[in-house]
């Protein structure tokens, strides 16, 4: 059974929505609605603000009080609403062209003033609505309609800009890594202060086709190749990492050192694996498939879903899947079916 009550938050009588087939904005709209519904945010205590662009239509499809603002001014309107009505939860749904290009100045200063609003940026790395021109977040070398020999400038790295001054909350995720996506949405909504979720999304009709992708799913696979999920909370994210970077106060010089060391001797019969060693057991060349979970290593070679594949959806063999399994729809009992073959040494990795 799956909870479909999120549909009450969508104006279904206006469906089907206007976005192209396979567009990631539909997925963003749906998952934001699911998360708002799970938190119990409704039309009495929530308002959505959107800017201009394909993603600016998102607010119009939500059954909440919505403001459709001038180009780039979504954050200013949101901040004004939050100032006048602090009891309202303010959610901004907009795109990278709106927030990063014409609204770049507002983005900088809204993050500086740190109002309690949540921003979902549908980052398709292109100006989608106007026909696929190179935007501020277009990666260098990408062919677009205005850069037929490849974009020559460096992209605007929103992740670096927004993580310079604490307090900050920046999460990067994609529409393909769905569990991670939902976890990021939820953490951003819980965050007290300015939270920004950079959702790497696909524009298949105006960007993907020019890059040689035939369907939206091929573009999703490309996201999977380009990005990888990092565990835990970081201070900063690299350009190819998906994860959450947050900090509440400005970093101070830490005097206390971690004295605690992982004991070398463990229960007999259980081998100690480091994350590096674990990577080799990914099922290639007839090797067994091992995964890490809560400090233990399990042999999941007999799992039917991992047969002949290095991965099952977002679960990658030879990795520590503790976080993946926590946010997965199934429980941890699935892991306990498989034999435990060793212990996982995580401390050593953290020290590096």
């Amino acid at each position: 059974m799956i909870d479909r009550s999120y549909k009450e938050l969508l104006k279904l009588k206006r469906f089907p929505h206007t976005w192209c087939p396979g567009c990631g904005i539909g997925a963003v709209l749906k998952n934001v609605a699911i998360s708002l519904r799970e938190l119990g945010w409704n039309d009495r205590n929530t308002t959505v603000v959107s800017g201009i662009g394909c993603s600016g239509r998102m607010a119009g499809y939500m059954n909440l009080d919505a403001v459709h603002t001038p180009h780039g001014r979504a954050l200013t309107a949101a901040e004004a609403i939050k100032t006048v009505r602090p009891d309202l939860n303010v959610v901004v749904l907009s795109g990278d062209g709106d927030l990063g290009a014409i609204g770049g100045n507002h983005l900088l200063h809204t993050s500086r003033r740190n109002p309690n609003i949540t921003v979902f940026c549908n980052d398709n790395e292109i100006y989608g609505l106007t026909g696929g021109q190179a935007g501020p977040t277009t990666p260098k070398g990408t062919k677009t309609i205005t850069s037929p020999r490849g974009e020559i400038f460096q992209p605007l790295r929103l992740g670096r800009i927004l993580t310079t001054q604490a307090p900050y909350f920046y999460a990067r995720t994609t529409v393909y890594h769905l569990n991670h996506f939902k976890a990021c949405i939820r953490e951003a909504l819980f965050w007290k202060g300015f939270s920004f979720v950079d959702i790497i999304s696909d524009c298949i009709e105006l960007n993907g086709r020019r890059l040689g992708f035939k369907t939206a799913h091929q573009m999703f696979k490309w996201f999977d190749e380009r990005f990888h999920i990092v565990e835990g909370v970081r201070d900063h994210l690299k350009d190819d990492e998906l994860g959450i970077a947050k900090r509440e106060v400005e970093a101070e010089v830490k005097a206390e050192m971690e004295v605690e060391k992982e004991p070398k001797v463990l229960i007999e019969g259980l081998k100690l694996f480091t994350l590096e060693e674990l990577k080799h057991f990914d099922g290639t060349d007839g090797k067994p498939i091992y995964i890490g979970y809560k400090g233990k290593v399990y042999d999941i070679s007999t799992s039917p879903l991992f047969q002949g594949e290095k991965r099952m959806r977002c679960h990658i063999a030879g990795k520590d899947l503790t976080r993946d399994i926590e946010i997965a729809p199934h429980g941890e009992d699935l892991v306990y079916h498989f034999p435990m073959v060793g212990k996982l040494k995580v401390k050593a990795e953290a020290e590096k």
Partner: protein
Amino acid sequence: MKPRLNVIWNEIYCKRCILCVEVCPVGILSLEMDEIVEKPGCIRCYQCERYCPDIAIEVMDEGEKSS
């Protein structure tokens, strides 16, 4: 439209992006004659429903399936 076995497909909402067809781990969905057709063998993983950006495909509940 052919009878539905395990999934409910909304013809009006669907834009035929065939994301559900490609995301299905057992490959039972296909686009034939501009319709999403399903073969028996659904494992009820809900991937098609979770990935569909148009809310056009839904896996039936257990009770609905038997009736």
